[in-house]
């Protein structure tokens, strides 16, 4: 074994001896111990391989030596006392590039800390630079904290390790801000004192540079202040008004965005701009290679300065968009909002995803830091389905033992909801690939919750029978949980399209499953909720009129139980409260049906390339695709046998002639499906201008035309298979036949 470094060795040079000896080996023959074989050798890292060997000194530019901070100072390669504006701008812009690259999932050692100044901020004497580096490190520290708190990252998104560097944690917030403010003011003075009389070209250039320095400092101060606003754990007054806070954040993003824009305009003033941007004073890309573990991605390609600044501008835009979360007080719409943010293109960075989490649930299970999540969930359930138990529909009198029991039962159920429902919010913050993975796991928790909700429903039902309230409680809270389960399942299946996991020959059963089952279940869940809601409304109206009558005739004044819920907002839609949701689901269901039929028809015509039979087992693939859904008991997993049984009709076609007419029938049905969906969706657009709906209409209309052509025998002998274009809608593609 290699001994610790302090051991003294007695070396004997055997270079020539060794090199001669290996010549005795045959080609491919190895000299090794019995305990060490090729298998072990596989895991060795290869020295001098640019991809594997972190410590490799680049021989190619052997003249340039990598200098550490101390070496650079000693050889006077690193200016500590006076940094000129040109260098300063270069350093700031490079630092932004480092920051952005770090946020894309690279390590701090290869990004932020290749800046030698950032390694030893206390040794910098230049006032502006010191102020900048300090606040820069504070920003990095804060970002790191937030991302850790929100914990919606995976190793591919974010590297939290600091490799023993200090992130200016010894400098208090206020001091960092004071430092930078002081610098800003000094610069401001300089700009003002600049006499406009002698405006030679040289001096106006100098002027530009100074104001560019000023802008950069200003940006970082505002950026830091913006980030600080998200820190509500430590603020003494935890219940800061969420609305005014979000207003503040919105203002800050505007200021930051403007500052960034003017940074972008002055970007060419920085040293090294446009050339090898990283090779300026203070940056040493290889300086930390030895800190990295032996097997680590070797070289980090930094973003260009212009790219990085644009990236931050986009970040500001995303933050601005995220502030709209404040309008989503209902849990369901908030959840939708989260998923929509996650689907934006380009995908939101880890910082914006984390900040959104902190904005919505900044404190342990308190939405916007105010309302406990249990309450928010109760509200959501109440608005969704108006459970008698939550709306006083059980006719229980407050203060009685039975009332207390029911209350406790309900409270317990919603306590249990907190974890899985909170996870749904958190999952929405992860990157798309991890979202899918986590959907698969959360289904198990939702299934357990479902079971619990069903039990509570059954118990409440017996009570409602006793109190003679006339309202059933069966499958009420259960339906609410089921809604979330179904939506999760649908998202799970759809995310496979987004991540391009499915092969084309798999599409038919994925769409079949959505068409025959999941959307059917979802629609019936909405129907059930609708009937509960209307029942509740008519009950409430009846009670109201009865109460009025009662007080008018001065009879007994009971009905204390439902006094509380009167303030609940009635849904605006008077007729059918879920007409819109149901119509949308029906449209998507119909589209899925269309895809399914089209897939079968194309398969019959031999347009779909399938794997060779000896390597293929549809059953295995099917079971693998739907395995995650099997963790839930309602709705039950549809076994492969049943799939085969149910789709027999579509697939049965014996001879060639029959096949052709059968396929064309299927295309015609698919066309009708898409047409039907388009009709429903067009009716929906009258009520809202949802981007999602308009793009779906486009998909439907195009597909409808394609199906009609195919039904008419167009391209029956087409050599190339169909193309699926997911650019208009991420889940439901446009079918193209070329």
């Amino acid at each position, binding site marked *: *074994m*290699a*001994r610790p*470094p302090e051991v003294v*060795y*007695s*070396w*004997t*040079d*055997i*270079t020539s*001896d*060794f*090199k*001669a*000896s*290996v*010549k*005795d*080996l*045959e*080609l*491919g*023959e*190895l*000299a*090794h*111990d019995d305990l*060490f074989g090729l298998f*072990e*050798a596989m*895991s*060795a*890292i*290869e*020295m*001098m391989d640019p991809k594997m060997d972190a*410590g*490799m*000194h*680049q*021989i190619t530019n052997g003249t340039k030596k990598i200098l*550490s901070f101390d*070496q650079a100072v000693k050889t006077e390669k690193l200016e500590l006392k006076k940094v000129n504006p040109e260098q300063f701008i270069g350093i700031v812009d490079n630092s932004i590039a480092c920051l952005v690259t770090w946020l894309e999932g690279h390590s701090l050692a290869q990004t932020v800390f290749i800046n030698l100044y950032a390694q030893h901020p206390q040794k910098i004497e230049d006032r502006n630079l010191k102020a900048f580096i300090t606040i820069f490190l504070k920003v990095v520290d804060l970002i790191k904290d937030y991302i850790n708190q929100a914990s919606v990252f995976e190793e591919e998104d974010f590297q939290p390790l600091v490799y023993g560097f200090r992130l200016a944690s010894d400098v208090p917030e206020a001091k960092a801000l004071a430092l930078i403010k002081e610098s800003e003011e000094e610069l401001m003075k300089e700009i003002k004192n600049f006499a406009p009389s002698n405006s030679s070209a040289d001096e106006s250039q100098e002027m530009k540079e100074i104001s560019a320095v000023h802008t950069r400092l200003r940006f970082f101060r505002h950026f830091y202040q913006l980030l600080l606003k998200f820190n509500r754990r430590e603020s003494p007054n935890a219940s800061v008004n969420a609305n005014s806070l979000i207003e503040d954040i919105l203002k800050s993003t505007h200021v930051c965005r403007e500052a960034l824009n003017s940074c972008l305009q002055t970007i060419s003033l920085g040293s090294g701009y446009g050339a090898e941007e990283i090779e300026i004073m203070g940056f040493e890309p290889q300086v930390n290679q*030895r800190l990295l573990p*032996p097997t680590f991605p070797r070289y980090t390609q930094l973003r260009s300065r212009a790219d990085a600044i644009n990236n931050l501008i986009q970040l500001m835009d995303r933050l601005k968009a995220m502030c709209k979360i404040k309008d989503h007080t209902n849990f369901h719409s908030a959840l939708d909002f989260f998923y929509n943010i996650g689907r934006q293109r380009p995908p939101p960075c880890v910082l914006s995803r984390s900040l959104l989490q902190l904005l919505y649930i900044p404190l342990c299970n308190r939405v916007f830091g105010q309302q406990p999540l249990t309450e928010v969930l109760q509200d959501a359930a109440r608005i969704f389905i108006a459970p008698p138990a939550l709306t006083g529909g059980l006719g229980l009198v407050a203060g009685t033992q039975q009332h207390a029991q029911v209350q406790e039962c309900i409270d317990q159920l919603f306590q249990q909801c907190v974890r899985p429902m909170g996870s749904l919010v958190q999952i929405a913050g992860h990157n798309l690939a991890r979202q899918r993975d986590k959907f698969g796991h959360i289904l198990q928790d939702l299934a357990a919750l479902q079971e619990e909700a069903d039990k509570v429903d059954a118990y409440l039902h017996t009570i409602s029978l006793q109190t003679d309230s006339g309202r059933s409680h069966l499958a009420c809270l259960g339906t609410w949980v089921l809604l979330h389960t179904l939506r999760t399942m649908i998202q799970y299946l759809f995310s496979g399209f987004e991540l391009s996991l499915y092969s084309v020959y798999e599409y038919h059963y994925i769409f079949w499953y959505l068409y025959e089952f999941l959307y059917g279940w979802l629609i019936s869940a909405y129907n059930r909720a609708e009937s509960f809601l209307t029942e509740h409304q008519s009950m409430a109206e009846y009670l109201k009129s009865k109460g009025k009558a009662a007080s008018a005739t001065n009879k007994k004044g009971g009905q204390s139980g439902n006094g509380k819920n009167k303030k609940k907002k009635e849904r605006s839609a008077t007729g059918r409260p879920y007409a819109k949701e149901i119509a949308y689901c029906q449209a998507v269901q119909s589209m899925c049906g269309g895809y399914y039929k089209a897939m079968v028809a194309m398969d019959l015509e031999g347009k779909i390339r399938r794997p060779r039979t000896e390597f293929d087992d549809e059953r295995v693939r099917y079971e693998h695709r739907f395995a995650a859904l099997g963790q839930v008991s309602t709705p039950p997993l549809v076994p492969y046998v049943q799939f085969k049984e149910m789709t027999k009709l579509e697939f049965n076609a014996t001879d060639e002639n029959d096949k052709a007419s059968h396929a064309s029938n299927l295309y015609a049905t698919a066309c009708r499906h898409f047409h039907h969906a388009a009709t429903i969706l067009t009716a929906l657009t009258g009520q809202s201008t949802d981007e999602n709906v308009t793009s779906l209409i486009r998909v439907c209309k195009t597909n409808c035309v394609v199906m009609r052509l195919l039904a008419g025998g167009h391209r029956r002998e087409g050599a190339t298979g169909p193309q699926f274009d997911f650019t208009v809608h991420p889940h439901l593609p446009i079918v193209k036949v070329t």
Partner: protein
Amino acid sequence: MDEGLSNIEMVDISKEASNEKELTMKIKSPGRLKLESWLNAVMKIEIEDGRTLIGQFLCTDRDCNIILGSCYEYPPPDDNASEEPRVLGLAMVPGKYIVSISVDDLMVHNSPYIT
């Protein structure tokens, strides 16, 4: 089934294998023997970019590619003497980059692995 089984002739594989081993033992070249005597000893390898690697010699081939176990990497001597060595673990050094090889002769004789 029974018929099928009875048709199979049983062959003693272990005997054949040991024969083969004896055979290879006989044709071991002096170079190979020398290499085997160094196996598991601590070795110091200097490579082209100036670094020194110290680790246990585990494996080599005709092109002088060497695998070192529990390997430490030392920076070039002129660089910064105070710098700590870096732990690499299992490392393969391609022959073409090797400048010099040394062996710790205390280990060669004391190594428990050498018979």
